[in-house]
């Protein structure tokens, strides 16, 4: 699909220049070492893919076969493991994760882009201060805030609700999102907005009709990053949510394991279901992800 093209082009563009020269230089020695390195690369790929492959294969096995025939393919393919996993709890974790992730994305993008708009278009002492305030947020980590947040959310009566996750996720994702979007906003040419003002557009109009539409690529990046974070976050999800009906996938899987006892096939099926959305996201949107990495370079 489209994403592979862009990717190839990217590499193409980078590597075109020296390509023919290098072909000429290839001799036997280089070929041997090239193949050795290639072997190493493939081995590494195997090391990463095999456990995942095993997870998928084993999710279609019965407990006995997982336990006794670790390496073999299932003699009988238990596709019903997926149905069981779905109906025994994964569906509710999945929906919770979906609600939390989508809400976080919408709020982060909306609030973050609004802040970035102010930060990129206005200058004053207060705005400089705000920028430092927001960038400083990158330094904070969830571990340190855990206990005070727990107290605060309890006091606000938000503990054990989805809001506990959504609000904290949004707060912790905002700094990076604002930095990414602000940098992009700064690159938008001024004459565009001037024409908009002549058109009779207000500040809000400039934000919603010019800046936002022009920034779709970076917003996609912010969405990918936020989705990845919110879908996989574990610590807050474990501490702030007790109730099984409200758990998201990462913390819910722990309950799922305890509840299932030896139903390993079903557990593994649940694990596969939990991973699929993010892998799809990776394959479809990798170019946005790479862009974010190159501009943000802060671990999710």
């Amino acid at each position, binding site marked *: 699909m489209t994403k592979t093209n862009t990717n190839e082009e990217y590499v193409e563009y*980078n*590597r075109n220049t020296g390509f023919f020269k290098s072909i000429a230089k290839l001799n036997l020695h280089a070929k041997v070492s090239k193949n050795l390195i290639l072997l190493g690369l493939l081995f*590494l790929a195997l090391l*990463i893919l095999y456990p995942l492959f095993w997870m998928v294969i084993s999710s279609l096995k019965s407990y006995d076969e997982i336990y006794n025939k670790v390496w073999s393919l299932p003699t009988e393919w238990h596709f019903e493991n997926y149905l069981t996993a779905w109906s025994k709890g994964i569906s509710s974790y999945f929906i919770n994760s979906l609600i939390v992730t989508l809400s976080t994305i919408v709020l982060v993008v909306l609030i973050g882009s609004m802040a970035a708009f102010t930060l990129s278009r206005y200058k004053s002492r207060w705005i400089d201060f705000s920028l430092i305030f927001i960038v400083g947020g990158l330094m904070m*980590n969830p571990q340190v805030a855990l206990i005070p947040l727990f107290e*605060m959310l309890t006091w606000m009566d938000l503990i054990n609700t989805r809001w506990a996750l959504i609000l*904290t996720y949004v707060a912790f994702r905002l700094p990076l999102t604002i930095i990414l979007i602000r940098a992009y906003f700064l690159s938008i040419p001024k004459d565009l907005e001037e024409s908009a003002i002549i058109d009779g557009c207000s500040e809000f109009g400039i934000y919603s009709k010019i800046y936002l539409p022009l920034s779709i690529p970076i917003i996609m990046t912010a969405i990918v990053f936020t989705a990845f974070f919110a879908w996989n976050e574990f610590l807050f999800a474990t501490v702030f949510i007790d109730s099984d009906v409200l758990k998201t996938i990462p913390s819910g899987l722990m309950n799922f394991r305890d509840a299932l006892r030896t139903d390993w096939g079903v557990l593994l099926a649940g694990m596969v279901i939990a991973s699929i959305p993010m892998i799809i996201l990776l394959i479809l949107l990798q170019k946005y992800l790479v862009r974010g990495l190159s501009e943000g370079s802060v671990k999710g």
Partner: protein
Amino acid sequence: MREGVCVIYRKKQVIPTLFILPSILLLGIFIYFPLVQNFYNSFFDFSVFSPTKEYIGFAAFKYLLQDKVIVIAFLNNIKYAVVSMVFQVAFALILATILEDKLFRRVAPALRIIYFIPVMISISVIALLFGFIYNPQMGLLNSFLELIGLENFAIPWLGNATASIYAVIAMSQWQSIGFITMLFIVAIQKIPKELYEAADIDGAGKVRRFLSITVPQVKETMFVNTLITITGAMLVFNEPYILTNGGPGFSSMTLSVHMYQQGFVKDNMGYASAVATLIFALTAIFALIQIKVSRTGKDE
């Protein structure tokens, strides 16, 4: 409708403030306030359900110095940092260089995605999967060792006091290597091509090109990645919490798991806050260095 949106806000001062306010509020409430609150909490003794907090001065910090578990945990965090440096900074840089080499331009895009897949998968899925891999009875690792005749090396990885922390660390490397590699790839792609072409004309070998062009050019990224890795190692929670819960005994305890245990299992919220303060101090040092360095980087 469209005009309506445009004329609602005329005053220029209102919009910028209104736009940035939600971000400032969210960060203030959910990031900065908890930080201050955590410092405050460190001087008190309280539990989740106690209505009052008892002032104890520096007692919690004094206890921090006597607590043997803190030492074990801190050493484990250091081990985490050192191993991660080797794999995620040194090895990842080499891997990125190889992947960006024109010899592998056909396989590189696919490999990049493969190496990146574990990054996108939830840590709880990965930890559960590695629970299967390290399982002493049917685990993939031990049955693989038996398969190749090394059954003497097959030990109950997570139940062995010496091996457990390394088993946990190994899983982290497996998961994160693709992430750091991708950051390096992005950095390498930004290196001006002329530099390499000049080196080609000089007839420089691959190793020299790597040492004299790639390494100096990605120095800043290397530095940032080092800090990301070290900060991450100081904070690590999910992996040991899910795989071993710090056991057997305290042998795979880390600072964050200790904090969680003290606060949410043993209900010593005050002491847990002191541990969190320690974690904050450790990471703040690295974060300050990071900010300083990225500033100097921008001056170029």
